[in-house]
């Protein structure tokens, strides 16, 4: 990249498991709320913003191009340009990197980038048989026709297609995401206990980050619909009193007979939104703003869909090639926790010479990730993974933490359903 992209500020809503506290807040309302707060905190004039780019995976039917809906609901003038991006679990990063590309290409100077997701609102769908039934009924003209079609109705038509399950199932390899994690557990021989231990740690780190107020710095509380009579102030995923004992009691969820991946060592379906304000470093200097941090470089890479969890290794490998950085150059790493098995798998792959030579065409390992700088404030297993939002959240979380520790550079990376990885190099002054 010919110039760093300044991330002026970032803000997010608290995250809560789908179906819980945020269940009545739609993805567009959630995004608009976060965006309003971003605008209020930066006090940056909306009129000077060129575009709004939002990542969103489950794109609700009633808010087509949700980015534009969010922009208008958060008070932008009608002239605002807005687009929605979708790169599955990295949608909230894609919005940031797309914005970066646009800024560097001269297609806009100041851009809002973020992500929003309400997994609570992913609908159940009618199946093919029911849809066909409806179609026939609508076309029927005479009473006789109608009756004859009506008589063809079977209760089985009503069996819904569960949107979330469809979304989380890879249409190419046919595996649901949890089974891709089982693949990694087998590839790297990651025991159930190691996974549970990792999950427990994520909860402990997240709880500490909440209690110390570190996460509150990036969060705006949300008055909760439908009645707005309570306020959600913190992330609700981290469990007080989580223990190995409780985790070990859970049955494997995806491979019930021989599996190791449980709901306890996976990230939950989650609702949440996050927003950032971006411009070139030189523009920020010109206006006299102090950015929260900078995007230095980024890479995306693809791999086999059934091993999608290893995306971070592939993407980071590319990032290191492009920038000349080594793993030692990163003071902090945020590696999204889709599954404990997947994070541990990545840890193994990062430090493995054999993996490197077999899959990355390199003779040496990328380098070990020091566990003490990895996901220091907990990760998605505890905090949740609102798929369209997480990418943006990781960027905000890592930049705030770098500043807190007075460190310089961080790596934010995540695996992407469908078999991709994303890796962003982020810096603070």
């Amino acid at each position, binding site marked *: 990249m010919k110039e760093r992209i300044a991330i002026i500020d970032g803000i997010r809503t608290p995250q809560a498991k789908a179906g819980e506290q945020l269940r009545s807040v*739609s993805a567009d*309302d959630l995004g*608009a*709320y976060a965006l*309003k*707060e971003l*605008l*209020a*905190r930066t*006090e940056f*004039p909306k009129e000077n913003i060129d575009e709004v780019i939002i990542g969103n995976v489950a794109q609700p039917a009633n808010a087509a191009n949700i980015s534009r809906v969010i922009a208008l*609901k*958060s*008070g932008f003038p009608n002239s605002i340009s807005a687009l929605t991006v979708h790169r599955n679990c990295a949608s909230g990063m894609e919005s940031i990197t797309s914005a970066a590309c646009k800024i560097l290409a001269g297609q806009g100077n100041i851009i809002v980038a973020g992500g929003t997701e309400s997994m609570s609102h992913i609908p159940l769908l009618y199946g093919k048989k029911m849809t066909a039934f409806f179609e026939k009924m609508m076309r029927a003209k005479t009473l006789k026709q109608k009756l004859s079609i009506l008589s063809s109705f079977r209760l089985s038509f009503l069996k819904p297609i569960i949107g979330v399950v469809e979304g989380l199932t890879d249409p190419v390899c046919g595996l649901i995401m949890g089974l891709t994690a089982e693949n990694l557990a087998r590839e790297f021989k990651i025991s159930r206990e190691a996974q549970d231990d990792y999950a427990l740690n994520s909860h402990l780190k997240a709880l500490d980050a909440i209690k110390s107020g570190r996460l509150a710095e990036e969060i705006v*509380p949300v*008055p*909760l*619909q*439908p*009645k*707005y*009579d*309570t*306020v959600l*102030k913190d992330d609700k995923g981290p469990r007080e009193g989580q223990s190995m004992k409780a985790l070990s009691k859970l049955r494997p969820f995806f491979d019930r007979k021989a599996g190791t991946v449980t709901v306890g060592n996976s990230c939950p379906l989650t609702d949440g939104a996050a927003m950032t304000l971006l411009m070139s470093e030189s523009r920020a200097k010109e206006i006299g703003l102090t950015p929260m941090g900078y995007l230095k470089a980024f890479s995306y890479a693809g791999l086999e869909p059934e091993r999608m969890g290893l995306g971070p290794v592939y993407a980071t490998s590319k990032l290191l090639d492009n920038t000349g950085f080594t793993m030692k150059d990163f003071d902090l790493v945020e590696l999204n926790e889709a599954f404990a098995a997947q994070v541990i798998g990545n840890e193994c792959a990062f430090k493995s010479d054999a993996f490197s030579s077999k899959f990355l065409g390199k003779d040496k390992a990328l380098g070990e990730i020091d566990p003490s700088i990895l996901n220091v404030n907990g990760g998605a297993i505890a905090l949740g993974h609102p798929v369209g939002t997480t990418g943006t959240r990781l960027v905000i979380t890592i930049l705030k933490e770098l500043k807190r520790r007075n460190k310089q550079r961080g790596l934010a990376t995540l695996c992407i359903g469908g078999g991709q990885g994303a890796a962003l190099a982020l810096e603070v002054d």
Partner: protein
Amino acid sequence: MKTTNFSLITKNGIGRLTFDLEDEKVNKLTTPVMKELNKLLDELKHKREIKVLIFCSAKKDIFIAGADIREIQDISDPSEGENKALMGQAVLNKIEALPFPTISAIDGAALGGGCEFALACTFRIASDNPKTQLGLPEVSLGIIPGFGGTQRLPRLIGVSKAMPLILTGKSIDHKKSEKIGLIDAFYSQAFFDDGVESFAKSIIEGSSEKRIEKRRKKQSFLIDNTPIGRAIVYKKSQASVLKMTKGHLPAPLKAIKAVKYGLKKSLEKGLIVEAQYFSDLVVTDVCKNLIQLFFTGEELKKFSGVRDQVLSKPVTFKNGGVLGAGLMGGGIAWLLSYRGLNVRLKDIGWDAVAKAFHTADKIYSQLVKKRRIKHIMKSVYMNRLSATITNSGFYHSDIIVEAVVENLDIKKSVYSELEPRIKSSAIIASNTSALDITELADGLKNPERFIGMHFFSPVNKMPLVEIIPGEKTSDKTVMETVAFVKQLKKTPIVVSNCPGFLINRILMPYVTEAIKMVSEGVSIKLIDSVAVKFGMPLGPLELADEVGLDVGYKVAKILEDGYGDRMTVDSFFESIHRKKELLGKKSGKGFYIHNSGKKEVNPEISLGKKSNCSASIIEERLFFIMINEAARCIDEGVVDNPRFLDMAMLMGTGFPVFRGGLCRYADTIGASLIVDRLTSLEETCGNRFNPADLLITYRDERKSFY
């Protein structure tokens, strides 16, 4: 063909008569216009080339706005009124009797006489212009439709649908009009001329007449076309009118009578009765009061807030701030968001903030339920609210309304924290009801941008906002704040920075006088019933319970501090105040015991003594003490003029409209009688009744407020 106000073009059998009232922005049915029309119609009926006649207007957004209200105001003799009505009816009868079908093509307001004009035509069609409104608002001016409206409307759409229109005076849009059969079709405004043309052609060809006739007959047969059905409608209408007006407004009752009579006898006889009732009503005080209020409303719409000045350019407020998320803050945040502002809301804790969101959401839910807004709009409006517990996000606010607790130091510290974070052109407006505006502004960097803006509770229902400039407030700030309140669609009244401002200053003596009477042993029920009979929506003691006795006491104390002797808080009020559980409605008991909707006099308040104060003395004590204070307010220039004071009382206290306001009411009694009575009350009740200087001057110089 062209006359002063009308022009006729005839083409292919379609005549188009365009009404364009000379030197006016709107079309009105003045007496000269009616005379002109009368002559014109005599000529028109001989025009053989006309197969169908269209009536239309050359004015933008107006078909015919109605009769000339000034003219109605000036009618002082019932026979003059009757003649005007009969003359108008005769003209409209001529339209009805034309040898060819007629069409009113309505693209804008067709109200009162304008609507009656349309009713006299064979057909009515309208555009979907948002300004297209049809209705008979006469009752809101204390009269009934006098050009046949009470007769033709029920005949056209059926009595059950006609009654609400006639009795409430509310106007309806093109969709509703089409639905109830008041118009026969509507077209989009962009293609209105084409629509009118093709409608007219179809009439000439005879292709749609039958269909329209059939559609019109689709009235509710059992209700509208049977004597029993109609009797039920009359009875129900009567009951609802009495409930709404408590019998204080004669016009709706007369309207029911006119409709009933006309439908029983005939159109001709009905018209005669209608004209007679119209003339009875048009000379009453009620009618004159309501018309005066109409004009005062128009005057207020134009008033910039500062005499003889206007803003150099109009302002629109886009971003607003609200400090304090209590009941008032929540209501104000709702109002701002509803009127298109992005709102930044601040309180000290998130739970407090949530209360404001909750308040706003509740009001929006009510609006959705009443179908005033669509469900999806609720989400759009709610999204205009953002909240914080810091001072961030106010930089773009054009105006910040402060509604934190009534404490000078707290308010001042809130301002001093906020002022460095807002732009210098932003207005800070305090919703204080009690504190001195000049004192509040002390210490601000821009005191000229500080002002008082007193909303009444509940914000979504109360239309009045008092605007109170402090010593240093600039004229520009006053005018911008007035413009802001107008943008919120509330009524702004600029008042002086005196204790209690205008409304509380006048209303409080009324409430404390009532409490004083209770202490003398007058029955609580009697006092309240006298006030309600007078026309107040609530008696003073019921009002005290509603507001809360603690709040009332606080205000009373402030007024005592400000005005001394004449507003001394009675020891009895103190003693009630000291009993902490007697807070009024919110604690369940005050002067009344509030028990799930039921209200009974609280026996704890009873003093054992009994006073035989008569109803008329009670009424005088309650209302003359207000008149006395109002006179002082006028004398001191607390408000620009008595008309504005009257409007403020109406909107701020629910003072009965039919009395026209407090000053207007005083005028109907006369200064001399009022001074007499005040003097006598001063002897029996104390020097708080000492007549105001202005009243004495009025008595001596035979003057009045108006």
